[in-house]
């Protein structure tokens, strides 16, 4: 579904990604771990198409198409969803309006007609229940005045409504207490499907106790330096990233 080949990207003239290779298949859950500044969030944002990052080399093939030439909206319409590390507050735009516009744009791409108000509401209610979200939230402005936990939960709620093919979760666990973490993880697990791939970017192993990955990769200094199964995450948790860097230097 997703092939990342030797991807290089920089921001403000500074190279952050220095040749990332990653292959993600339908139904897979991948975790990308790594120390601060390793390029985890940059990778997530580049895949979503943020234009502050300049891609300087490599390619990304998504479902047989070149991803890097696509606009952010086209990527979303083709089924890519980024759960933001820092969801943006948008005063004056209600969650309801925002989500409906998003969903109908994606449906249009799929050749479907707009959902009518009743069907949309029914869908939204079902997903709100899943994430334990209060209905009053739908009439509030997008993320405005939300707590950190509410924002993250709202991201997963949006993901549940939009049902992407490829979901990228950028540090969705940071800043969450254990109750909120469970709710978010349950929401993500409910979306696991053989038709959907999930890439979890995280600094902490803790999340992976709840969202158990099929593959774990370690990103360091802009490259994936180690890949393994779920046991790699536990090893990292035990030994920290220092061990890995020493091992790399030894090689």
């Amino acid at each position, binding site marked *: 579904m997703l092939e990342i080949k030797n991807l290089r990207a920089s921001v403000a003239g500074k190279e952050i990604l220095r040749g990332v290779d990653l292959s993600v298949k339908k139904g897979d859950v991948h975790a990308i771990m790594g120390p601060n500044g390793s390029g985890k969030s940059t990778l997530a944002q580049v895949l979503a198409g*943020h234009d502050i990052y300049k891609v300087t080399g490599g390619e990304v093939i998504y479902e047989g198409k070149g991803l890097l030439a696509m606009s*952010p909206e086209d990527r979303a319409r083709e089924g890519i969803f980024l759960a933001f590390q820092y969801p943006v507050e948008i005063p004056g735009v209600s969650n309801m309006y925002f989500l409906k516009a998003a969903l109908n*744009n994606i449906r249009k791409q799929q050749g479907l007609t707009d959902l009518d108000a009743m069907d949309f509401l029914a869908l939204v209610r079902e997903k709100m229940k899943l994430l334990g979200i209060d209905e009053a939230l739908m009439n509030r402005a997008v993320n405005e005045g939300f707590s950190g936990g509410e924002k993250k939960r709202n991201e997963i709620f949006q993901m549940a409504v939009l049902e992407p093919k490829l979901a990228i979760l950028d540090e969705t666990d940071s800043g969450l207490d254990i109750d909120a973490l469970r709710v978010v993880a349950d929401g993500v697990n409910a979306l696991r499907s053989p038709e959907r791939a999930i890439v979890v970017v995280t600094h902490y192993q803790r999340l992976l106790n709840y969202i158990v990955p099929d593959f774990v990769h370690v990103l360091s200094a802009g490259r994936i330096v180690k890949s393994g199964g779920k046991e790699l995450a536990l090893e990292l948790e035990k030994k920290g990233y220092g061990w890995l860097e020493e091992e790399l230097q030894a090689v």
Partner: protein
Amino acid sequence: MPEIAEITESYFADFTRRERRAAWLEPLRERAMERFGELGFPTTRLEDWRFTNVAPLTRTPFKMPSPVADGVTERNLDAARIEEVAALLVFVDGVFEPGFSRLRTLPAGVRAASLRDAWDSPGKSLQGHMARHADTDRNAFVALNTAMFQDGALIEIANGVVLEKPVHVLFVRAPNARGTVTHPRVLVVTGRDAQVKVIESHVGSAGTAYFTNAVTELVAGENSSVEHLKLQEEGDEAFHIGMIHSHQERSSRFVSHSVSLGARLARHDIISVMAGEGAECTLNGLYQAGGNQHVDHHTRLDHAMPHCASREYYRGILDGKSSGVFNGAIIVRKDAQKTDAIQSNKNLLLSEEATINTKPELQILADDVRCTHGATVGQLNADALFYLRARGIGFEAARHLLTRAFANDVLSRVTHIPAREQLEAKLLARLSAGWKPEEVL
């Protein structure tokens, strides 16, 4: 090209020719015309007019319109009418048109009439307040209006009377208004504990240069509540100069919304005098301009008495090569202790060539006051744009969504829902000009 003196002469000629209906008003008119002659049109050398050059306006000898205005039909008015109003007064090229107006039975204690009809039975409000508030001494345009106005609206609400639905005063210019000037005049007077909403709109046709010089006086009696919405939607070659002057008695509440969308050059002066203790005044404003439009708001909140509160929220959206001006004066007089004033002006520049001059102007002579002000000028938030796009909303649609959200902060304060919805639709239509809505929103 005619000299400015000749232009002024043409106004004097019209002054001589005008109808004289209210003898009691004549001395005021004579004096106002004299004052107009002394002041002349303002130039950019005056601090208050530094950024607004009215030279193009003063180069044309605008005349009074011919008595028969052609081309305005009921259907033309559809886009300007507002649902669920208590009364509608329509003025075509400055003259009351009973045929287009809707003055159905109003509750006792409510008077909504054309000034022409009111001259014959003026009553206390008209004689006591007409031209007693708006400043003819210092403002040439107010002086000119006062000297020349032929018609307009009088709205009077007696003590204790609450009119829930708004009175709509609609000034429409005929398609053949080229080269003409009108001086619309509105007077709103509320008694003690009374309540009223007034919507004043100015609409005109595209492609014709005309001049509207409007003055509105609002007098809010003790503990009364007045909400005024002015919608300026003149044609794209028109000049609109408007003065809104409010005078508030003790514990009264005044809310003004100034929505300025049209005209080639629009200048709005809003002067609000809190003349009684505990008065509250809110000034909301939204201006949107594109192309070569110029829009200027000069507001002045005059805290003359203690314990008054003012709130001012102005927002502007400027595109193309348009230019905007916001000058917000807050005056706190010596005895106006416990004044509480908040002012905010936010501007969105959608193009690199659009400009805005924004300036607070605080004169505080009391010591126990709270006055805060803030102004911002910026582009659309890039993070918010990306967030919307990352959810599948296209670039142009995302820009529109954010721009409308920015404007809705002001429009959402309009309490008459049909008016608010109409404003939102009009704003959307203007923002969407040249944009093909192939995006799903």
